[in-house]
């Protein structure tokens, strides 16, 4: 079905199942170790061989010689695959660098071989026996230096890199209050708990891969393209994904090398990237340098706004568009944004949770704190004063729904914001300096076309199949809830099957479009199935009522299983989003409140309290949505206080490439977290009236931490992460 206009009343409004707090339907499987992740398919791919990936030891240059004989004769080794013997390979549409390199090396730890052996231990031992000689070339690894050579990147996802309205220069010069500050955000690693992992099995010229992936259809196409084979011959299976955060949007070396290894060894092969290879072999969130200039009048209204951003990537890679985090967020007639991208020889940069907006808000929401202080206004009040219900660049375009003021005010009330001392460094609790910080969360609510197949079996059970993935986001449950609501059955009578390219193509998981799009696709398929039921019963679809597992029309009342009959009844459809996206801006909003303690002597920062008040349309499953938000808040604490892929600017790689040295938040770092959703629904986006929450929670939260640190200490650190050394020398 096409979604062309604002939705009126529909069956999802019943909210008998949708919107109800529902434990994850796959929860017991996960809690008992019975959910099957990519590396764990024993019954389907029995007795696999093991592949171990060898990564390049230089960042840029060429392999001059590679002696694999030691590995080939090593105990248990079945095959060694390199670019030289892999046969002709193409490159996926979504890959920037090659997944199997040689002789040219584009970045450190780029895969150059897979060693296949009978056991993991033999494969690992075999990998140490390959002798590689390189000719290194000088590369560019320092964004600060490369910034000077950065160029205007092409538009991406419909967003131009630059924007301007009014007269920024004139307004900034005339503003009574202004700030001009530069912020640094480092590269971040997704560091999902499940490593990139795949099993590959060939049957003739047909390939099946069990892999950890967020976007099944894209990855099927890219794997087929890379292997120069028709996509119909490739099946991708990924029902459980141990975290992705954008890192598993595209195919990576594990799946290609498993496929090549399996072809060479003539048996199924499983490959997991060793943890220390993940940061440099795969993708990361690129570092940014951002300059923000803000001018405000005596009334606190923003009169001049400029947000400029510099980032870098491999040649042909996209840029980290940090300015979308601010471009239409607050009012003000005179404005400009710009993005410039430099070419770097570091590993490929790509999407990580709220790409652009996470680092953009890390900088911009500190800048708002700074200008509010300059003007002498409370930062909550300053944001309220500068709220806009329209696109400040194009005032005819309105926000479809925007309750940012309500988020801020509700949060301030709940958090006890009125007790905040505006004077920095003024509140002490023993040896701890205590501060409060606030920031806005702001993230787009896109949609993607999405399909599903729904079937009723003679038992009365409802089966939903879609290639949608659940990367921890709760897709299983909200899809089940949607089918249960639409088909009038209890949730425990619904089976949800996900992550298989044999199923209809869905939106996939990314850009916080997954929940709204995939459930809308299921909604469409269910409508079609209801029509099929009506036809089978010989009644008009609009007279059909389905409830408690029975179809009712007039005097007819038939159990769904009976309607379906022995052969079952099935329908497939997809939602195609065709509304005029120019009319409205579709966004989700929130307000983050953070209390920190900063040790007066050691400068150690401890997060003491956190609250997010969010506004994201209809909430389909409140506990799962809460979990998305608090998880993102946790990741935002990491970005604020500890996460940084440290660049070795001489050799050209990320030095801290494991979980001991790339520090992410642990239990001790995260206090009890509060999350409140404002009641709302947005019928302009989809029939589900939901928006998306997966990325909203990470936007702004790091700045809220930074602003709380400033309030506690009077020290403004503009270079993330805010570590002890920086606080000590500020």
């Amino acid at each position, binding site marked *: 079905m096409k979604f062309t206009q604002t939705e009126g009343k529909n069956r999802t409004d019943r909210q008998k199942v949708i919107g109800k707090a529902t434990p994850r339907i796959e929860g*017991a499987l996960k*809690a008992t170790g019975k959910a099957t992740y990519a590396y764990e398919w024993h019954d389907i791919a029995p007795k696999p061989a093991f592949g171990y990936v060898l990564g390049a030891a230089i960042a840029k240059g060429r392999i001059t010689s590679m002696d694999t004989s030691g590995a080939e004769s090593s105990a248990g080794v079945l095959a060694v695959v390199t670019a030289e013997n892999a046969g002709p390979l193409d490159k996926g549409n979504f890959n920037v660098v090659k997944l199997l390199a040689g002789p040219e090396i584009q970045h450190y730890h780029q895969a150059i071989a897979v060693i296949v052996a009978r056991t993991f231990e033999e494969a690992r031992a075999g990998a140490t026996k390959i002798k590689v000689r390189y000719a290194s070339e000088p590369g560019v690894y320092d964004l600060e230096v490369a910034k000077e050579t950065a160029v205007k990147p092409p538009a991406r996802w419909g967003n131009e890199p630059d924007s301007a309205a009014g007269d920024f220069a004139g307004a900034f010069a005339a503003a009574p209050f202004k700030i001009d500050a530069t912020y640094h955000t480092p590269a971040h690693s997704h560091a999902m708990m499940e490593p990139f992992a795949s099993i590959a099995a060939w049957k003739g010229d047909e390939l099946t891969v069990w892999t950890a992936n967020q976007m099944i259809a894209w990855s099927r196409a890219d794997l087929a393209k890379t292997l120069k084979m028709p996509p119909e011959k490739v099946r991708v299976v990924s029902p459980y994904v141990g975290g992705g955060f954008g890192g598993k949007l595209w195919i990576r070396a594990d799946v290609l090398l498993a496929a090549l290894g399996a072809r060479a060894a003539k048996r199924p092969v499983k490959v997991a990237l060793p943890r220390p290879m993940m940061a440099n072999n795969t993708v990361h969130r690129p570092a940014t340098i951002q300059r923000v200039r803000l001018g405000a009048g005596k009334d606190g209204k923003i009169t001049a706004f400029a947000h400029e951003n510099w980032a870098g990537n491999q040649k042909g890679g996209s840029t980290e568009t940090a300015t979308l985090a601010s471009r239409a967020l607050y009012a003000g007639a005179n404005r400009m944004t710009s993005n410039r991208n430099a070419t770097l020889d570091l590993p490929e940069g790509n999407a990580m949770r709220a790409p652009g907006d996470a680092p953009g808000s890390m900088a911009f929401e500190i800048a708002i704190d700074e200008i509010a202080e300059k003007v002498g206004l409370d930062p909550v009040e300053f944001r309220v004063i500068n709220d806009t219900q329209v696109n400040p660049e194009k005032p005819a375009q309105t926000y479809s729904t925007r309750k940012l003021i309500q988020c801020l005010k509700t949060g301030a009330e709940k958090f006890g914001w009125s007790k905040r001392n505006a004077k920095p460094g003024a509140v002490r609790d023993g040896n701890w300096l205590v501060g409060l910080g606030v920031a806005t969360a702001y993230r787009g609510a896109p949609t993607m076309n999405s399909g599903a197949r729904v079937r009723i079996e003679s038992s009365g059970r409802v089966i939903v199949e879609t290639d949608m993935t659940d990367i921890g986001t709760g897709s299983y449950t909200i899809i089940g809830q949607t089918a249960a609501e639409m088909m009038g059955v209890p949730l425990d009578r619904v089976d949800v099957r996900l992550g298989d390219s044999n199923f209809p193509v869905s939106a996939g998981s990314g850009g916080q479009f997954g929940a709204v799009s995939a459930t809308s696709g299921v909604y469409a398929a269910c409508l079609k199935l209801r029509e099929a039921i009506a036809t089978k019963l010989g009644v008009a679809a609009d007279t059909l009522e389905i409830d408690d597992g029975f179809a009712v029309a007039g005097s007819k009342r038939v159990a769904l299983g009976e309607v379906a009959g022995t052969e079952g009844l099935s329908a497939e459809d997809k939602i195609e989003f065709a509304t005029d996206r120019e009319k409205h801006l579709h966004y989700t909003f929130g307000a983050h409140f953070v209390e920190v303690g900063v040790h007066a002597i050691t400068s150690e920062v401890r997060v003491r*309290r956190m609250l997010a008040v969010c506004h994201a349309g209809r909430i389909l499953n409140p506990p799962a949505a809460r979990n998305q938000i608090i998880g993102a808040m946790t990741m935002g604490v990491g970005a604020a206080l500890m996460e940084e892929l440290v660049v070795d600017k001489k050799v050209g790689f990320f030095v801290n490439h494991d*979980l001991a040295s790339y520090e992410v938040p*642990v239990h*001790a770092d995260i206090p009890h977290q509060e999350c409140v959703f404002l009641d709302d629904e947005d019928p302009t986006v989809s029939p589900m009236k939901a928006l998306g929450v997966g990325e909203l929670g990470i936007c702004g939260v790091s700045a809220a931490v930074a602003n709380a640190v400033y309030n506690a200490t009077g020290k403004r650190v503009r270079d993330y992460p805010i570590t002890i050394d920086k606080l000590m020398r500020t």
Partner: protein
Amino acid sequence: MQGPGDFEVSRRDVLKLGAAATAVPLVAKGQAGSPAEAPVSTQLSLNVNGKVHALKLDTRTSLLDALRDHLQLTGSKKGCDHGQCGACTVLVNGRRINSCLSLAVMHAGDKITTIEGLGTPNKMHAMQAAFVKHDGFQCGYCTPGQICSAVGMLSEVKANVPSHATTDLTAPCALTNPELRERMSGNICRCGAYSNIAEAIADAAGVPAAGRSA
């Protein structure tokens, strides 16, 4: 119960095996280039979840890989293989360990409990049920390790083993929120469900879930 292929291994033998295992890479290096030298392997029996398994293993095999690849008990997860993330946590004789940091040959005669041994989907352990009830996970990959770790941690508190967060070494340990968080910090959850995990563990332990804490 032991099967016909098993043989008795004393604690002393286990230590010897451990020593032999650590010597293997040196031997292998000396033999590099010699064609298809068979790796050193050994037979052992592992008692996992109350069941004794006879195994012939490459001595380099970690306990984690023995569980996952040889016994097909894939509930224990490999997140880092370096003892940095805790996803592989299992209970050995009631104590929690990172199974990736331990060789399988060191565990003949030990009683190993994995997530599969705690409960099943239809008959969950109280800790497993509490994780489901409090939504103490998202992707689920760290979850078995978190749960095994939590079960082991509660025994440590009960046995008055102090932690970095313990303020009074002479008083009985209490499972306060700072204690819980400190003791669980070897188990990373990148999805960031910590707040919910803390509530789940507190619920299973029968202590109040803490709100504010510094």
